[in-house]
Each structure stands twice: as C-alpha cells, then as structure tokens.
C-alpha cells in the first residue's frame, strides 16, 4: 500500500502531541479511567490516558480489565461519546428579565467555547458526528450551539485494532477503518518496531501540527501492521445488522409480535438514548427565579423513552413501553433514512452494553426479519 504521507510517532512522544495542542490554545479532551469506566474528560497529559486498560463488553455488561501490555488506547468505546461536548446535556439558550410589563432578552449568543481537541475518536464516533452534522447543521434550521462547538473541534482519530463483542460497525459500513473526517488519523501499534503510532494527516491544520513533532517515515511493515489490525478488528465482529430493505422491514412490521417480546424486557430507562452517539432529542425548559423577575431558557437532553415525551392534552400518545421501544428503533434504523438520508445507527454497540437487561438491537432486527419470537426472553 502506498505511503500516502504516513509517518510514525513513538508512543513516548504522544505527550508532546498533547502539549502542542495545549500550546495552540486547545482544551484537550481524551479518554481516562474513572468510576470503573473509560470516559471522556479534560486531560493535561498522556499520564491520564487509560494505559494498560481494556473494556470487557457484552449485553448489559461492562468491566474494565487489565491488559498484559501498555497500550494507551487498548479499549473500544466507553459509555460516553463526543456528543457530550458537541451537543451538551445541558445548555442555557438565553436569559431574560422583566421590563415594562414585558421582557428583555439578556444574552442570546452561543457562549464562546474554547476550541477543543478530541483525542482518540473512533471510526463509529466520526460517523456519528457526520450523522449529527446532517441533523443539526444541514436541515431547515441550523443549531448555532452545535455549529460553534463542531467548527472549533480538532479531531485526532484512532483506528480500532480490536472489537468488542457488542461492536457491529463493519456491517454498518462505519468502521473500524478511518479514511477521512479527522485532522489526524492514528493507529496504535505494538510489538517489534516498538510502541508507536502510525499517523496520517487528514487536514491542513493536522499536517501543520505533525510538522512540529518528531516523526519518522512509516515503513511498509508499519502500514501492513496497521492494515492488519483494522482487518482483525473487523473480522472479530460477531454482531451485524443487514440493512437491506430495513426501512420497509420496520415500517411494515408495526404490529409484529416481537414488539411485545421486547416490551416485556424494556424498562424504558432511557440508557440507550443517553449513550447513543447520534440520539439528539432535547427538551426546552423555562425557569424563573422566586421573585419572577429573571427567566432562563435551558435545553436539556431528553429521551423518547419517557412517557411525557409524547404528551399532548388528554394524555401521552405512546403510553406503552412497546410503543416507545418501537419508536426508538424505527426512528434510528428506518425513519432516519427518510429524514436525513442515512441510517441513524453507527454500529458502536453502546446500547447493547449499557442496557440493564441487555436488549440487543441487532437481535431485534433479526427477529423481525425472521418473523419469529426467538432470542433472549
């Protein structure tokens, strides 16, 4: 495979990459171990990365386990995604004060954000950003808050060389390899050749940053090892969704008995929507102080799994767990095509891992296709 501008960065130099970003004014966000999971948070150095840790995932199961090496990105995906920063859980839209029997809006601009650098963006996460771009930037209206945070973000992607049993990005065409969409694309390599990163610039500012670091030319062996790692990750995936005719499958099976089956298990806890990197639903809350002179409008994450989500006078439209699970799955896998020209799912598998009862969206698709009630329950 041609070199295509690949270089190699020693793992010991990664700290300099982070320092260079900080120097350029970026607030660096990366993976770190906290509360038994690998989460995204502000980091100041490579010391905070999850060195030697991996994640063991299965339906309804997540545990951190020690690796027998010192890999810095030897895990797959944690409960959080970058939407934590791009489409924040809680943001104030504006505040207002009472004035002359009416009101006056006080501050309305999207609060200026320090540009952030996201270190360790997975293929599925890059695709999720593209999916949210389509929803929040490229439809009838444009979300100024998302736009500002997205434009400023410097993306350092990390190709996967391993998969969790819950991953199915290969079948969704969203990974594990990354060709574009990030400022830098890295692959962590170990073994003979040393602990290092294969790096490719994906943008001008990525290339500029690379020039400031001590890199060496990539060899054919480096490229081959990276390529092999990605292939291994893809081949290891046991789960999949067959997207052939999936829109019709879901639209035409509104009354399929499988929905009762999943409804008996689903607790409508909304975990799946919280961890899903493409779920974007929010609610708008108006609050005021006790005196009633000052009001604020806040936007908060919301979930279609709550009963109040579909409330209109007289009651909610989707009162049953069945209706709500069906809504989520049909929207994510089918209606999204009509709305935004792609699937809403990127195959990251978080919903499977973080569902307390281990409902598996890939299994539910299969059950609908096969017209059966088989599977867990």
């Amino acid at each position: 495979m041609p070199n295509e501008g690949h270089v190699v960065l020693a793992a010991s130099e990664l700290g300099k990459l982070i320092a260079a970003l900080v120097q350029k004014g970026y607030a660096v966000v990366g993976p770190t171990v906290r509360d038994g999971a690998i989460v995204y948070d502000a980091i100041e150095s490579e010391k905070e990365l999850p060195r030697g840790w991996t994640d063991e995932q299965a339906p309804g199961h997540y545990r951190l386990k020690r690796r027998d090496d010192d890999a810095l990105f030897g895990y797959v995906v944690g409960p959080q995604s970058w939407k934590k920063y791009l489409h924040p859980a809680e943001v104030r839209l504006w505040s207002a004060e009472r004035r002359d029997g009416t009101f006056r809006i006080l501050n309305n601009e999207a609060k200026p954000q320090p540009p952030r650098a996201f270190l360790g963006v997975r293929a599925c996460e890059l695709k999720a950003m593209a999916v949210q771009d389509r929803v929040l930037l490229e439809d009838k209206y444009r979300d100024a808050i998302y736009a500002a945070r997205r434009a400023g973000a410097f993306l350092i992607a990390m190709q996967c060389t391993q998969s969790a049993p819950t991953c199915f990005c290969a079948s969704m065409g969203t990974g594990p390899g990354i060709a574009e969409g990030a400022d830098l694309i890295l692959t962590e390599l170990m073994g003979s050749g040393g602990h290092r990163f294969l790096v490719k610039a994906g943008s001008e500012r990525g290339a500029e940053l690379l020039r400031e670091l001590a890199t060496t030319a990539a060899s054919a062996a480096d490229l081959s090892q990276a390529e092999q790692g990605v292939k291994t990750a893809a081949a290891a995936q046991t789960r999949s969704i067959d997207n052939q005719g999936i829109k019709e499958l879901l639209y035409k099976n509104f009354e399929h008995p499988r929905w009762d089956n999943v409804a008996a298990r689903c607790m409508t806890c909304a975990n799946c929507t919280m961890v899903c990197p493409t779920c974007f639903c929010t609610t708008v809350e108006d609050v005021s102080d006790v005196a009633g002179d000052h009001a604020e409008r806040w936007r908060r994450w919301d979930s279609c799994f709550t009963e109040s989500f579909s409330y209109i006078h007289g009651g909610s439209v989707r009162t049953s767990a069945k209706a709500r699970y069906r809504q989520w799955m049909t929207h994510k896998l089918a209606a999204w095509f009509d709305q935004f020209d792609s699937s809403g799912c990127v195959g990251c598998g978080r919903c499977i891992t973080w569902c307390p009862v281990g409902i598996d969206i890939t299994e539910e698709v299969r059950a609908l296709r096969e017209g059966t009630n088989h599977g867990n329950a």
Partner: protein
Amino acid sequence: MATAVITSTDVMVPQSYRVQEVSKETSDTFTLKLAPEEGSNGSSFRPGQFSMLWVFGVGELPISISGDPAKNDQLIYTVRSVGQATNSLVSQSVGSGIGVRGPFGTGWPVEAARGRDVIIVAGGIGLAPLRPAIYEVLHRRDEYGRLVILYGARSPRDLLYRKELAAWARHRDTQVLVTVDYGGVSWRGHVGVVTTLFKYARLKPTQSVAMLCGPEIMMRFVTRELEAHGLVRPDIYLSMERNMKCAVGFCGHCQYGPHFICKDGPVFPYDRIRPLMEKYEL
C-alpha cells in the same frame, strides 16, 4: 437539501408582543390579539401556521394563528384553557408582554385550491386554525368555486365565532352548516356529529379541496366520509398535532412517523399520512 439560513439563536428567541385585547369566546376559550413591540418584524404568516407563545416564567406553547393573513400588523390566537400554561396565557391583561416565536410550519393549500371548490371541516377548537384559510378564500372569493364550511362543536355554548359564521354564510355560493353533539334545551339547529352534515353539502367532489382540523378521531371519520363522497386523498388536507418543544426540528418531540410536525406539517395531505393514522400509539 440544505436551505439552512436560519440559525437557532434567532428562532429560539421570542419577540415581545403586547396584548391588545382578550375576548371571551366560550366558558373556557379566549381570543388574544397581539401587536408587536415597536421595531419588531411585521407579523406576516400563512394560513395554517402556528407560533410558540411564551408567558414569562411560565412556559411556551404552540398555538395556531387564527387571524386574517391580510392584516400583518397583529397576530390573533384563539386559545382553550386546559391547563396551567394555557390558563396563564388567557389570563394575561391588556398591555402585558407575551413572547412570540415563529411563524412555523406548513400552511393550508390556499393557492393550490384556487379555481376549485373548497370544503372546510372543523371540529371544536379546530375552527381556529382554519379561520385564516376562510378569510383568505373570502378575500379572493372570485378565485375559488363553492365554499362549504362544516363545523361541529360539543354543544351550542362551545361554538366559536358565531357572528362570523352567520356573516360568512351570506357570501355568494357559500354554505355554512353547523352542528353540535349535545343540543340542550333551546338549540333549534342540527344535532349530531359533523359527518351528518355531509349530505347537505353542495359539492363537486372531483373539483374540491378539503381542509380539516379537529380531534384526530373526528378527522379520521371525516376523511372516510369525504372519500365516500368522491374526494381523493391528495385533495384532502389535515392539521396534525403532537408534543412540541422547539418548533424547529431539533428537539425530536413532534415526530409523527418520519415527519416532524413542526416543519413537515402541521398541515399534511391525507395521502401522505393515511398509513400513519391507522397506527395506534405512533
């Protein structure tokens, strides 16, 4: 696809409008007249569109605009008080400020209906979102064929715009038929659900465009009746309703199948939503 020229910082901020008048239509329904604070944009809208009305410190509600689209110096809303938020809206005194965002959504097909007969079927408060379409047709009366207005309410005391209904009936080639579900003692008019009025409607079905607004159950029965009378699905339009928070397609609450009622609706042609209307808990 991207016609995205409007940013959320604009459309999520309410404009200040002052209450000019609050008039009582029925025991629980009131009409508010609002005029923009000086310096605000003109209040133009298309029949069928809605605004998000904000009461300081209470909350925001989607309310259909109910006034005359030809008069863009004020906005008129007919609101039924059914809960805390609507109650605070109708309790505003003259001169107080209300936040207005919008107008949002798709409108009634008043242009497409030109040259054809128009049948308007309203149930309960559903007459309010249809009134702008009626005004539009009456303003350009000669550009339309027959006008038939069928209106059903719960009881005589719940009828809206009674004086206007009588005035509308006096236009040429215009039929206004009113019915109630419960007649009471002194009502001398028709008693029965609104579908029972169809046999009196003078229509040319293949040349008609129908506009419907009311409770979903009522709209389902009415579409059946319209089809039985020979109208085709693309000529029937309904105004749908779902929970709304942002009104700009971001919060996800108003989804109806693949449609966002705030931007793909609230007015839909029946052929597009018929399969959805048959689905329970969609």
